[in-house]
């Protein structure tokens, strides 16, 4: 009896362990397929020409597979979106956890969550039909579908990520630290700026990196709003073609097993590596500088 129970226990534990490795297996499969379908492109184009090549004309003859403009576009769009999303996200987090009364934050928190829940295609659609004409009129530019518009829309996609993770970090700062600061005569603002934020800076950094990582990988918004020109932009109002947009737009017409198909998977590899680096850095910061008790500042 007891023996059978033990066998059941052992096999249950083994089963759960095997299932728990599913995430890693999927991640591994993703990498496997990206490389399997992406690496053949390097038979025709060298790695250096692929990454630093300035021309992306995948359908012309002979085709040019240089994704440098796409990489630059992805980085620029993400960077400019960070200009909006980082201050807004972090300030909202500070407001929610330090300033707002519980009753207010009970309303604001779900609002931020619902903002996160808006489908990306809806935000892209909004940027396309309402923000683009508006920008075109106000700034008197040839097209409203450009780097700036895409960054603005992306910012609102990454704010919820930045806000909720920062808020967790700020929330985990021990109350004793705040009390100590206030007891020394600091105002609440001084306490926030000099004690609470420094104490939670690693969590806030993790939040920012994850938010930016989301912006790099976001597809529908940049597909619909960024304008789609695979050139190096001269100004913030130039249309661009970030990597995810290029993959999503061209995959449908790229024949399976052709050079274009391989090139798009290779672009996927680059994108994957980008977000992977972001995530590993975030994970590293979160582990390395984790707040343990009150003495680790």
């Amino acid at each position: 009896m007891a023996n059978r129970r033990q066998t059941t226990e052992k096999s249950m534990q083994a089963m759960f362990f095997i299932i728990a490795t599913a995430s890693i297996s999927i991640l591994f499969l993703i990498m496997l397929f990206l490389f399997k379908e992406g690496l053949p492109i390097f038979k025709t184009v060298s790695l250096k020409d692929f990454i630093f090549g300035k021309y992306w004309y995948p359908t012309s003859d002979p085709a040019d597979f240089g994704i440098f403009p796409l990489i630059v576009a992805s980085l620029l769009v993400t960077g400019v979106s960070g200009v909006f999303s980082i201050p807004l996200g972090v300030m909202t987090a500070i407001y929610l956890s330090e300033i707002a009364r519980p009753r207010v934050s009970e309303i604001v928190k779900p609002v931020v969550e619902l903002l996160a829940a808006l489908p990306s295609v809806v935000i892209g659609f909004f940027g396309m039909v309402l923000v683009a004409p508006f920008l075109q009129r106000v700034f008197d530019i040839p097209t409203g579908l450009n780097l700036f518009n895409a960054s603005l829309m992306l910012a609102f996609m990454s704010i919820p990520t930045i806000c909720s993770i920062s808020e967790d970090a700020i929330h985990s700062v021990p109350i004793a630290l705040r009390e100590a600061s206030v007891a020394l005569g600091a105002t609440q603002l001084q306490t926030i700026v000099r004690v609470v934020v420094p104490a939670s800076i690693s969590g806030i950094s993790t939040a920012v990196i994850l938010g930016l990582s989301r912006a790099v990988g976001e597809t529908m918004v940049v597909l619909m709003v960024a304008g789609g020109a695979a050139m190096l932009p001269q100004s913030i109002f130039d249309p661009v073609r970030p990597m995810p947009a290029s993959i999503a737009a061209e995959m449908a017409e790229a024949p399976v097993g052709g050079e274009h198909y391989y090139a798009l998977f290779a672009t996927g590899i680059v994108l994957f590596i980008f977000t992977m680096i972001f995530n590993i850095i975030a994970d590293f910061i979160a582990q390395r500088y984790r707040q343990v008790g009150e003495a680790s500042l």
Partner: protein
Amino acid sequence: MTLFLETNPPEKQRSDKSAAETKAKEKAMSKNDRTFFEGSAAYDRRRKFKQSAFFNLFRAAAAINGMALLTIIYFMVANGWRAISWEFLTQPPMESMTKGGILPCIVGTVCLSFGAILAALPIGIASAIYLNEYARPGKVVRLIRLGINNLAGVPSVVFGLFGLGFFVVILDMGVSIAAGALTLGAMSLPVIIGSTEEALKSVPDTYREASLGLGATKWQTIWRVVLPSALPGILTGAILGISRAAGETAPIMFTGAVFFTPKLPTSIFNEVMALPYHIYVLATAGTEIEKTRHLQYGTAIVLIALVLGMNMLAIFWRARLRKRLK
């Protein structure tokens, strides 16, 4: 935005008022802080002013988020509510998608997102059970968590590429509900694991100890005690997972959704139309983009209602659960 204004805190500690200050100014300054400490003179006044200025800035940041959400929903509803009708919800698109309804898209989205959860929920719950109930801290757990975190960070379009390479081509499912749902399922796995773990963590250890103390094995404890208590939390996570899957476009573009198909799916190996992809198609590649604008808004409203409705349900439910646990 009265939504974000707060009531004033009681002014307990304000006792030593130097008479020189104008009362009105004093009042405006103390409005926004919970006064912990009462200093005196100009220094104190200046830093109070600075504090209220910064607090208003923080408040404005929070308000911008709310305004963004309201603006988006307002414009969608204001421009699209006329498109919503019984016919719109129950008819297929007609005349090369310039008229008619979106029934196939609704059905397709429901199939894809429920399929995704059917695939992801068992795996996600089992993973969370392992991580929360069985695993001991160490390298293996660290690795599994790193895998989950990284999976959560994989861009949606890369999931699409993976689904295309693996499910559609290698497993030969073709562009189908099965391939799309499995791709979406892989994508929502981290969400499910995260929310299930949270639900398991909220079950008090005393429950487990009581069960083990009565002689139950670990598995019996998990199955009869821990899981039933965690079930509402797990279901909340599942609803959030479904809504996430329903709103995604990039992963299904190459794996499950097609431009147009007149008939409703009869098997999981049929291709389908989907709401998010339909919006994208109508707005960027339709035959007459301007003329179908109202259809685009209408589809967007249906998608928003579906996704936000499920989210609000989950948020409301979770809030009630948390209150009960306290």
